[in-house]
């Protein structure tokens, strides 16, 4: 930085005293006052004013030592209340979603049976025929990872030809819930979060008060013996029998929390 004039240096004195000047500017000021007694005196006068103002405003006493604990006790009470409200919300959501999942399941089943109904088989009365009983599809068959990529595999996947249905996040979420119910869980909730690294997952575990063991972490719910189990899987649907996290190219991850009473 080039040498400062007296006027330029004086304009920067307050910022210099406030430690707001960049290092190279601070150095230039120090070099200037080293060779300029008048500016050095002006700087000292300004520093004295800063000190006088600071002194006049007085000292702030230290906060009482118990304040930290008092704040955290209030925060903990607030957090516990929030968790209870969320648990209650999720139970309501699961109940509503279960009803809708059943509705969607029956609808999908009817859709899949349409060829049979319009074909010879339907004419022969195989659909809703002798037994007269429509059964919900097997949960595994209804929504399984291999069935959700548009491939025709599987007896009863989300219909590949119905792109709107296939692309619907809502259908995916309800189907996920249906799958969870089929596996004997009492519900599932999908939480979309972002994570850039496993450290974020560890931090997430810590945020639930849980310890990350290298694969996943368990989140204990304390209300009404309900336990939410969250396990970090190895990849998309790596183990369909267990809850998992999967991600996309942007680093967004989706956590499937299965809830079992």
């Amino acid at each position, binding site marked *: 930085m080039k040498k400062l004039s007296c006027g330029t240096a004086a304009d920067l004195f307050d910022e210099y005293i406030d430690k707001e000047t960049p290092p190279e500017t601070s150095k230039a000021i120090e070099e200037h006052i080293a060779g300029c007694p008048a500016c050095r005196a002006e700087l000292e006068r300004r520093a004295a004013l800063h000190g006088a103002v600071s002194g006049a405003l007085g000292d702030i006493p230290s906060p009482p030592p118990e304040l930290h604990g008092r*704040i955290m006790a209030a925060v903990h009470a607030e957090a516990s209340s929030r968790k209870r409200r969320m648990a209650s919300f999720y139970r309501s959501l699961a109940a509503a979603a279960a009803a809708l999942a059943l509705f969607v399941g029956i609808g999908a089943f009817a859709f899949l049976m349409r060829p049979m109904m319009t074909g010879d088989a339907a004419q022969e009365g195989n659909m809703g025929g002798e037994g007269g009983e429509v059964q919900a599809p097997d949960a595994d068959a209804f929504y399984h990872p291999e069935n959700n990529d548009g491939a025709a595999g599987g007896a009863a996947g989300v219909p590949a030809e119905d792109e709107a249905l296939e692309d619907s996040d809502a259908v995916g979420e309800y189907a996920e819930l249906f799958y969870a119910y089929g596996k004997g869980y009492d519900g599932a909730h999908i939480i979309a979060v972002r994570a850039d690294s496993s450290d974020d997952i560890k931090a997430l575990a810590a945020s639930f008060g849980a310890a990350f063991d290298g694969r996943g972490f368990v989140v204990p719910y304390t209300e009404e013996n309900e336990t939410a189990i969250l396990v970090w899987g190895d990849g998309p649907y790596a183990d369909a029998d267990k809850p998992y996290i999967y991600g996309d190219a942007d680093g967004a991850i989706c956590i499937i929390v299965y809830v079992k009473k």
Partner: protein
Amino acid sequence: MKKYGSLTDRELYVLSGRGDELAFSELVTRYRSFSYGVAYSVLRSPEDAADAVQDAFLRLWRSAPRHRGECEVKSWLYTLSKTAALDVLRSRSAHAALSVDEISEAGADLPDVSPLPDEEAERRETINEVRAAIQRLPEPQREVVVMRELHDMSYSEIAKALNIDIGTVKSRLSRARAALAEALRRAAGK
């Protein structure tokens, strides 16, 4: 796993938004004195200041889930602490009838210092002169002086807390200091 102490304020606040009480506890450790200073400078009562600080941190905790990573925690906490302190001030029965402007004035009020003999008396007189000069500053200038000199906030933190640009912070400080210097010169010439 990172230690909480090594995380930035923003990282801690994001974790707090996910319900991480330990992360929030670290923020309390870092800023309880700061928040207490802001509240105490308004209330001048240790008990009331502690109440205001607790309220301010609760507000900080509640707002954490909505945090999008764009705010400076210290600046945000300044606003919350001052608001909480003014709420306490309003709730005091003795101040129940004060208007908002009067509360603002009361908040910036500084305790008087009784004169004493000799050098101590002279020093205290100077302090009182400076305090009187600070009181005479326009509120926007006085506020940035208090934030800078009492609460040790950086220009950037002040700018974010007041939602003004750094240039405005500098100009207000500069005008305030020029006025204070002039007041002190006049006082010395008496």
